[in-house]
C-alpha cells in the first residue's frame, strides 16, 4: 500500500469514515439535536466534493494493484454522486421531520450509499464493481423501508430488496463466467486477453449478457423494470428522489465502465442487443407513463423512459468515432437527468402535504398562481425531461442522437425522437395543469428544499445556453476509457 493507493480512494474513505462517525455521533447526541446531523452530513459531502475537485486536475492513477482507478471518468462521476448526495440531504431535511422518519441512521446510510456509488465510478475490477453495487444498494433497501410500519414503505423495501438481490445474483454469475472466459476479473486484463485472442469469446459474451441483466435491473431498463413503479411510489419521497438519480447514475457508471472499457471486442454481438433494449425501454416507459395519474408512478415510468435514452449510448459501439461521443453524451445526459429528476421530485415533496394521500397530477392545478416560482421551476424540469429548449435535457438529447446517427443507427434515433414527442404529452400536461387550471394546491415552504429546487432549475437553464465547457469536460473524462 502506497501513498498513491491512498490518494486514489481518499474521497471514498473520507466519506465512509464520516458516515461512521455520524453514526456514532447520533448515538450520543440528544434527540433535540437531530437536525444537526443533516448539517454534518452535508458538511461531509461538501468536504469530499472539495477533495474530489482538487484531485480532478491530477493524472490517471491506478490504486491497489489495479482494483480501483482515478481518471477523468471517475472524477466526473464523483462530482455527480456528491451533488446527488447533497441534493438528497437538502430534500430530506424537512420532509423526514414531517413524515416522522427522522431516525438518526438516515444520513449515515445515505452517505454509505454515496460512497458505494463513488466506488462504482472508480472500480476497475469486477470484484470491486460487485462490492460497490452492494454497498450502494444495501442502504437503499433499508431506506426504502424506512417509513415502516407504513405498509407501502415495507412493500417497497421488500420488493426492492428481493429483486435487487436477484439482480446481484445475475451480476455474480456474470462475473464468474467472465473470469472463466478470460482468467481475470481485472478489466484491463480482460481487455488484454481478448486482444491476445486467449479469451473464450462465447463464454465472455454470456458473462457480459448476465452482467447486462444485473445492471439492467439497477437502471430500471425494460424488461427488468417491474419493481420501479411500486418502489418509487412506496418509498419515502425523499428516498425516491435520491434513488431515482443516484442508483440510476451508478448503474450506468458500471455499464459504461464495464461495457465501454472491457467489451469493445464484443460490440458486434452486444450493440444490436443494446439498441433493442434502448428502443423497448423508451417505447414502453413513455407509453405507460402517459396512462398514469399518480404523480409518483408517472415519474417512475418517466425514469424508466429516461434509462432508455441513456441506453442509446451503448448502441453505436461498433463505430470507433461514435463511441467516445456516445459515452460523453451519456455522461452529459446523466447530469441533466440528475438535475431534472431531483428538481421534479423536490416539487413533489413540496406539494405532498398529506403523506397518506397519493399526489395526483390534478393536484398541480393552480400552482402557478399559488407559488409562481415553484411552477416555473417545475416547468423547467418538465421541459428538460422532454428535451425542449432552453434546458440541459435538449442539449443532452442532441449529443446522444448525434452519436447514434453517426453510429449508423438512424432508426434508433427516430424512435428516440418519436417517443420524446409522446413524452411531451404527459410532461406538458403537468405544465398545463399548473398554469391553465384553477386549484388550491397545498404547498410546504421549506428553505432548503426551495434552495435545492431553485439551484437545479437555474443550472439546467443557464448551462444549457453555453454547454460546451461541460461537454468538453465529459469528453475529456471518457478519453482515457478506450
Amino acid at each position, binding site marked *: 500500500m502506497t501513498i498513491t493507493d491512498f490518494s486514489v480512494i481518499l474521497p471514498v474513505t473520507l466519506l*465512509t469514515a464520516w458516515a*461512521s462517525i455520524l*453514526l*456514532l455521533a447520533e*448515538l450520543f447526541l440528544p434527540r433535540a439535536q437531530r437536525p444537526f446531523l443533516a448539517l454534518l452530513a452535508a458538511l461531509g459531502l461538501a468536504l469530499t466534493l472539495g477533495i474530489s475537485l482538487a484531485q480532478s486536475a491530477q493524472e490517471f492513477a491506478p490504486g491497489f494493484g489495479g482494483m480501483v482507478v482515478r481518471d477523468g471518468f471517475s472524477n466526473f462521476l464523483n462530482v455527480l454522486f456528491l451533488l446527488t448526495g447533497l441534493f438528497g440531504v437538502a430534500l430530506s431535511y424537512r420532509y423526514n421531520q414531517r413524515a416522522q422518519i427522522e431516525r438518526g441512521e438516515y444520513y449515515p446510510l445515505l452517505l454509505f450509499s454515496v460512497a458505494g456509488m463513488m466506488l462504482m465510478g472508480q472500480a476497475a475490477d469486477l470484484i470491486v464493481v460487485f462490492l460497490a453495487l452492494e454497498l450502494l444498494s444495501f442502504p437503499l433497501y433499508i431506506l426504502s423501508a424506512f417509513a415502516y410500519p407504513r405498509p407501502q414503505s415495507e412493500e417497497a423495501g421488500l420488493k426492492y430488496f428481493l429483486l435487487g438481490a436477484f439482480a446481484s445474483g445475475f451480476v455474480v454469475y456474470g462475473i464468474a463466467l467472465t473470469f472463466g472466459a478470460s482468467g481475470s476479473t481485472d478489466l484491463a486484463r480482460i481487455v488484454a486477453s481478448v486482444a491476445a485472442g486467449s479469451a473464450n469469446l462465447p463464454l465472455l459474451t454470456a458473462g457480459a449478457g448476465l452482467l447486462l441483466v444485473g445492471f439492467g435491473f439497477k437502471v430500471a431498463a425494460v424488461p427488468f423494470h417491474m419493481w420501479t413503479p411500486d418502489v418509487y411510489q412506496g418509498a419515502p419521497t425523499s428516498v425516491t428522489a435520491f434513488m431515482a438519480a443516484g442508483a440510476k447514475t451508478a448503474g450506468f457508471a458500471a455499464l459504461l465502465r464495464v461495457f465501454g472499457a472491457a467489451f469493445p471486442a464484443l460490440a458486434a454481438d452486444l450493440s444490436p442487443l443494446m439498441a433493442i433494449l434502448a428502443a423497448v425501454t423508451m417505447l414502453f416507459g413513455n407509453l405507460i407513463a402517459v396512462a398514469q395519474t399518480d404523480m409518483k408512478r408517472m415519474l417512475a415510468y418517466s425514469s424508466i423512459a429516461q434509462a432508455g435514452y441513456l441506453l442509446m449510448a451503448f448502441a453505436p459501439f461498433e463505430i470507433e468515432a461514435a463511441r467516445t461521443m456516445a459515452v460523453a453524451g451519456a455522461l452529459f445526459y446523466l447530469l441533466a437527468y440528475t438535475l431534472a429528476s431531483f428538481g421534479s421530485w423536490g416539487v413533489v415533496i413540496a406539494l405532498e402535504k398529506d403523506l397518506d394521500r397519493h399526489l395526483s397530477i390534478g393536484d398541480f392545478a393552480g400552482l402557478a398562481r399559488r407559488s409562481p416560482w415553484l411552477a416555473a421551476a417545475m416547468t423547467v424540469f418538465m421541459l428538460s425531461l422532454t428535451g425542449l429548449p432552453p434546458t440541459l435535457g435538449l442539449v443532452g438529447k442532441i449529443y446522444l442522437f448525434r452519436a447514434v446517427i453517426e453510429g449508423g443507427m438512424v432508426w434508433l434515433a427516430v424512435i428516440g425522437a418519436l417517443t420524446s414527442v409522446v413524452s411531451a404529452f404527459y410532461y406538458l400536461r403537468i405544465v398545463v395543469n399548473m398554469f391553465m387550471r384553477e386549484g388550491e394546491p397545498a404547498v410546504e415552504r421549506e428553505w432548503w428544499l426551495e434552495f435545492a429546487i431553485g439551484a437545479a432549475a437555474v443550472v439546467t437553464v443557464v448551462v444549457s445556453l453555453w454547454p460546451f465547457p461541460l461537454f468538453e469536460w465529459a469528453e475529456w473524462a471518457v478519453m482515457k476509457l478506450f
Partner: protein
Amino acid sequence: MLLEYAAIATMILVTALVAVIAVVLGSLFGPKRPHARKLLPYESGMTPIGPGTRRVPVRFYLIAVLFILFDIEIIFFLPWAIAFRELGWYGFWAMVVFNIPILIGFIYEWKKGGLEWE
C-alpha cells in the same frame, strides 16, 4: 489427496453409525406401550393448546442476523490466523482496519439495545 480427509470421513461415519445403532437397539429391545397421549407435542405435561407451531417474535431474527454478521467476520480471521507470522505487522494493521467498521457496528447495536432481550 482425498485420503487426507479419510480420518474426518471415518469419524463422521462412526458418529452416524453409533447414533443409528442406538436408535435401532432401543426400538428392538425397549418396551412398547403406545398411547395416543404420548404422541402429542410435549408441553410440560399439560394437554397442548393450539398448534405447536406459532409465530415467534422478531427479536429471534435480529439475533440470528447479528450472529451471521459476526460469523462472517470470524471466517475472515481464520486465514489471517494461519498466515499470522508471514503477514507480520502489515497483516495486523490490515486486520485492525477491517475491524474498525465492525467495532463501530457493535457499539451502535449495543447502544441501540440490539443486544437486550426486552
